[in-house]
């Protein structure tokens, strides 16, 4: 494989991987969102007691964390696409991409703490 000296450093890395990853993560997010939405809809008046008990279960923590992992990957690909489409100067684009990754990683770490606090 030949790699030219003018290869785009902030591109999509010419791959199918992210495209597919975005769709797989989308399915995970959709299933979780619909399931949680239906639960809230059918549960009626949700007080703290029941809400916290739901998230206290280990399976729910794991399911939520996996979904959040899918969310961060999904959001990264989506935001990267936006920066690639609308921000043309490479330096600004790279800076925004780095900020996006940092923001998402910070959210990831924080969400783990939130999930395991209950």
């Amino acid at each position, binding site marked *: 494989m030949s790699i030219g000296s003018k290869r785009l450093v902030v591109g999509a890395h010419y791959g199918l991987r992210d495209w597919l990853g975005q769709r797989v993560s989308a399915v995970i997010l959709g299933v979780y969102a619909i399931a949680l939405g239906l639960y809230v809809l059918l549960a009626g008046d949700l007080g703290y007691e029941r809400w916290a008990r739901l998230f206290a279960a280990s399976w729910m923590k794991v399911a939520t964390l996996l979904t959040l992992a899918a969310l961060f990957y999904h959001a990264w690909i989506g935001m990267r696409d936006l920066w690639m489409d609308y921000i043309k100067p490479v330096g600004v684009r790279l800076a925004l991409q780095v900020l996006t990754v940092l923001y998402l990683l910070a959210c990831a770490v924080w969400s783990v703490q939130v999930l395991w606090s*209950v």
Partner: protein
Amino acid sequence: MSTVLQEKKRPEFRNIHVTQIVGYRLPAPGMVSILHRISGALMFLLLALVIWLLQLSLASELSFMRLKELASHWWVKLVFVALAWALLHHLVAGIRYLLLDLHLGVEKRAANRSALAVFAVSLPITLLVALRIFGVF
């Protein structure tokens, strides 16, 4: 004579500039597409807020009460409605895109109808959520 033969000039768009957006009649699939991006970006920006709300709802009975009190302000309700719309549009449009990826409904007519279907599903549900949030029922 030439004026008779000359076809009526239709507006031509290549790379649309921001100032041309108002005059450009975007077809329904295009509306779904740009709103998919806007809703996604909105949820990305508000992600930290959502995690904080989750924290409030889970941390303790006291923080749960704080969240309830916070949610009683009309402008907070407005943010919740915006988030609900973003999620619903992104979800329903996303399902449409997954179907398109499977080569279902890629023809012009079908794509236009499914784009309208996205709005027909996401907007009424958003309205219901909004009415619920503002305590109408």
